[in-house]
């Protein structure tokens, strides 16, 4: 692998993993506080899967540059994280969390399907594993969007509010990272443009069938994963507090 391709792949794997870590963090804030026991359990499944996916992506990076996944997760500062801003937004109400999960799961499922035939074998193998779980996530959140959208006036209003807030942020999922075109050219990762077209089509259809309106003004659309919301610092301060508390600790 040429050094510039390798560098780009490391950056891409980091971005994929960081998305999962931060989204898992937000979702895990619900554990013990869900609207009903069954859904508390359901979301905790998603959190575990996401942490598993992060571990896989960091693991692929480790194979390339030897970096330790826990060092990456717990000892990088906010300006070194490469997650999208959508996943940083506070968990909000159940509608906010379910909608974000739906938008993200749909993107991830489509991306994974396109990445199945990656020329980079370790990535293709990870995709197979992750895709199984992601298909179920999507079924789950697809069902939730439909039910909240068509449930009561209040649930529809809350879901619409979430959509108005998130739609612009979600577009960042389809912004390539610097150097991604090298990876696409090598067939290592799929081109995001056709994935975005498909995502727009499917998301729009399901959201509209669920009684929602796409916002006319999409709002702020982040363009670089080097930038973050004002929440990331606090997320990391909390998330890394134990790991950084004892600088001498070798194992936890």
């Amino acid at each position, binding site marked *: 692998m040429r050094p510039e391709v390798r560098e780009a792949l490391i950056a891409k794997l980091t971005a994929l993993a960081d998305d999962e870590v931060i989204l898992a963090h937000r979702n895990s804030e619900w554990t013990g506080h869900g609207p009903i026991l069954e859904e508390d359990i359901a979301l905790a499944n998603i959190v575990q899967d996401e942490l598993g996916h992060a*571990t896989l992506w960091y693991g692929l990076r480790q194979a390339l540059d030897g970096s330790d996944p826990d060092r990456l997760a717990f000892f990088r500062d906010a300006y070194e994280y490469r997650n999208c801003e959508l996943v940083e937004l506070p968990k909000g109400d159940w509608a906010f969390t379910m909608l974000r999960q739906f938008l993200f799961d749909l993107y991830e499922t489509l991306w994974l399907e396109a990445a199945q035939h990656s020329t980079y074998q370790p990535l293709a193998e990870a995709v197979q594993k992750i895709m199984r779980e992601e298909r179920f996530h999507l079924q789950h959140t697809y069902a939730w969007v439909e039910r909240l959208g068509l449930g009561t006036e209040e649930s529809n209003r809350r879901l619409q509010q979430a959509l108005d807030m998130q739609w612009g942020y979600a577009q960042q999922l389809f912004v390539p990272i610097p150097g991604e075109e090298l990876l696409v050219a090598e067939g290592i990762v799929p081109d995001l443009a056709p994935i975005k077209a498909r995502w727009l089509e499917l998301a729009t259809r399901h959201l509209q069938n669920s009684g929602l309106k796409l916002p006319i003004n999409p709002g702020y659309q982040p363009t670089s994963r080097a930038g973050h919301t004002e929440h990331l610092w606090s997320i990391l301060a909390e998330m890394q507090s134990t790991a950084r508390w004892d600088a001498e600790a070798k194992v936890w």
Partner: protein
Amino acid sequence: MPVKYGVPSDPDYTERLAEFEARIKRGEKIEPGDWMPEEYRRQLIRMISQHAHSEVVGMLPEGAWITRAPTLKRKMILVAKVQDEAGHGQYLYHAAETLGVSREAMLDALLSGKAKYSSIFNYPTLTWADIGTIGWLVDGAAIKNQTMLAACSYGPYSRAMVRICAEETFHHKQGKEMVLLYAKGTPKQRQMAQDAINRWWWPALMMMGPHDKDSPNTEVLVRWGIKTKTNDQVRQEFINEHAPEILEAGLTLPDPDLRYDEQTGNWLHGPINWDEFWQVVGGNGPMNKERLEARRRAHAEGAWVREALEAYAAKQQKTAVAV
């Protein structure tokens, strides 16, 4: 379906009670629909719903550390563990529901403060080592009880407990692994582990409930095969297993009177501070109010979600009928 809950004023009560107790003696399971004394049902609902509430409230002290877990693996394990607690609450509510009490009613009893749950969850989790210690000691104590209850005479409770025991063993092991690791770790880790043991040891011993002489329910519960051991028996088993292991790990226990008794093979403990126990049971533990408030908030904030899905289902049914 006619369900029979017998009361002593029934003409055939004595006869049926004898048959019922004979069934339990033979090791048969009592199933929903079978005749049972109303008192058996009442005791079961009390115990099972308290047990379910304990699982659900028990998610809170540990859940608070998910976002602060120090590695990805520990985070994943902790999410799975707290999730299991939700699952165990779920299984237990199911067992109680088979006795004709609704989950709505049970939750109402919890949230209104009428129902009790295990007092141990009214203590705060102050450091990460509390997570390991809860797994090792609190789950260790819980497993002792649950293993006993898996042999319980009421089918649905027994089945829930068998499932819970199978899942719970990892809770105990992951906690023990952590504490042993920290006991051999850096000075800060060691200190954190010792501090956690100091704070959780006595509350863990209190988990089995009052001494047998102060436990009025025990006799009937044992006779009807709901419990098969007394509080003191279970407590002794717990100490015999855990005390030597903790000492072996190089940690100390906060009981100056603790000693091994050659004659009985038991580890004998000093006096338990039952005043503290009854204070916490009575609502005056450090976290009673916060725990209940957290449950109330989640319940209230989830109300519109539950209504929305009910409304969706009603609309779907209407459409289905119309088609």
